[in-house]
């Protein structure tokens, strides 16, 4: 529908006025085709990330160290599914169907956050993911609660409320490990070492190499550049890691008095591009798992639809 959109001067004027006022665009408003495309891309990627993001953590549900931790982890993974669904339905308001998005993911045409292509090799990874990966996500997502597209912003408000539990439970896992036996502390430090750089790269490439950032900012979808958010996040980690009595694997972290922001060491953007291109440690495994889950669930979807059709037919007969 967006492809053949006619030129609409009044629509464009209304859109520009809404953006200039920092108000919200709603589903039935006229919007430029580029704006719609940018939103569908960003929101569906975000939804896919939540869905694929269930896998690295689901990996530890059966091996959580206590019933309490198992219950917490299950609640968290259930939240990720919920976040995916909020975002899919928000994206559907732009005229893209759920099936189109599912197809794009399964066919490998749609992207999801590169962070979920890293393996979760120890229990401490559940802590590092909560603290750093969800922490980065929150830093990124809080400004999105003011995104110019109403359904997206509303979904983000709900998601951000739930994410704060995720981050705190992760921090607590690391805190307990780092104050445990030397072996546990080493396990926590190892997880922090592995997740630090990938979580910083979650903010996306440096602004100079991020083709979508400036447009997204002009449309009030994004409110801050990738580098600013990343620097802000490093500042939070630098303080919080002291409470954990662990170390960040980056000797270059310091507050820069001139720029009033946090400096950090160089990141391996070649690795980022490799993972994004599908050549990360777990890309194949994640996609295979998602396709299998989709295929294995096909009979459930079909049976429920058949049952609903039968019920509605018999209701029609009774009414007749």
């Amino acid at each position: 529908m967006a492809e053949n959109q006619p030129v609409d001067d009044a629509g464009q004027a209304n859109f520009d006025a809404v953006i200039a006022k920092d108000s919200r665009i709603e589903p039935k408003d006229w919007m430029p085709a580029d704006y719609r495309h940018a939103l569908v891309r960003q929101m569906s990627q975000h939804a896919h990330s939540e869905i694929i993001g269930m896998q690295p953590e689901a990996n530890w549900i059966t091996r959580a160290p206590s019933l309490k931790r198992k219950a917490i982890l299950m609640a968290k993974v259930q939240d990720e599914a919920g976040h995916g669904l909020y975002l899919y339905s928000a994206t559907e308001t732009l005229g893209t169907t759920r099936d189109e998005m599912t197809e794009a993911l399964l066919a490998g045409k749609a992207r999801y956050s590169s962070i979920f292509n890293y393996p979760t090799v120890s229990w401490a990874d559940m802590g590092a993911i909560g603290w750093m990966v969800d922490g980065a996500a929150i830093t990124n997502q809080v400004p999105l609660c003011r995104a110019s597209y109403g359904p997206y912003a509303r979904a983000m408000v709900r998601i951000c409320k739930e994410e704060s539990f995720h981050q705190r439970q992760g921090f607590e896992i690391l805190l307990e490990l780092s104050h445990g036996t030397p072996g546990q502390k080493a396990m926590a430090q190892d997880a922090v070492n592995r997740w630090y750089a990938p979580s910083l790269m979650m903010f996306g490439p440096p602004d100079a190499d991020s083709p979508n950032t400036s447009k997204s900012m002009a449309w009030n979808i994004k409110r801050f550049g990738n580098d600013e958010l990343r620097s802000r996040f490093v500042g939070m980690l630098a303080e919080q890691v002291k409470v954990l009595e662990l170390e960040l694997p980056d000797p270059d972290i310091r507050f820069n008095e001139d720029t009033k922001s946090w400096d950090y060491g160089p990141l391996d953007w070649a690795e980022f591009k490799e993972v994004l291109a599908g050549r990360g440690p777990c890309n194949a495994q994640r996609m295979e798992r998602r396709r299998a889950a989709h295929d294995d669930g096909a009979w459930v979807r079909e049976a429920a639809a058949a049952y609903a059709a039968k019920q509605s037919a018999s209701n029609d007969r009774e009414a007749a």
Partner: protein
Amino acid sequence: MGTGEVWPLWEVFVRSNRGLSHVHAGSLHAPDSAMALRNARDLYTRRNEGVSIWVVPSDAIAASDPDSKGSFFESPQGKDYRHATYYVKSEGVKHL
């Protein structure tokens, strides 16, 4: 059922507490109303957000045209007399 979609779309309204209205929470796909209610419970009330849920097929909702803002909604221009604050002569009179 929508084009090619296995399950139709439903809009979900949640009443957060007795005495309050149901408020739109979001939407979801489900094969029928019973499943839509169950899915809505799992999706939108994981943290005690509701005491009652309504689900409505999305295509059953009629919406006003956003382009006809000016002509569809009556202009409030010059109609301040519809608000209590328009009447200032009674300022200082108690219980009014």
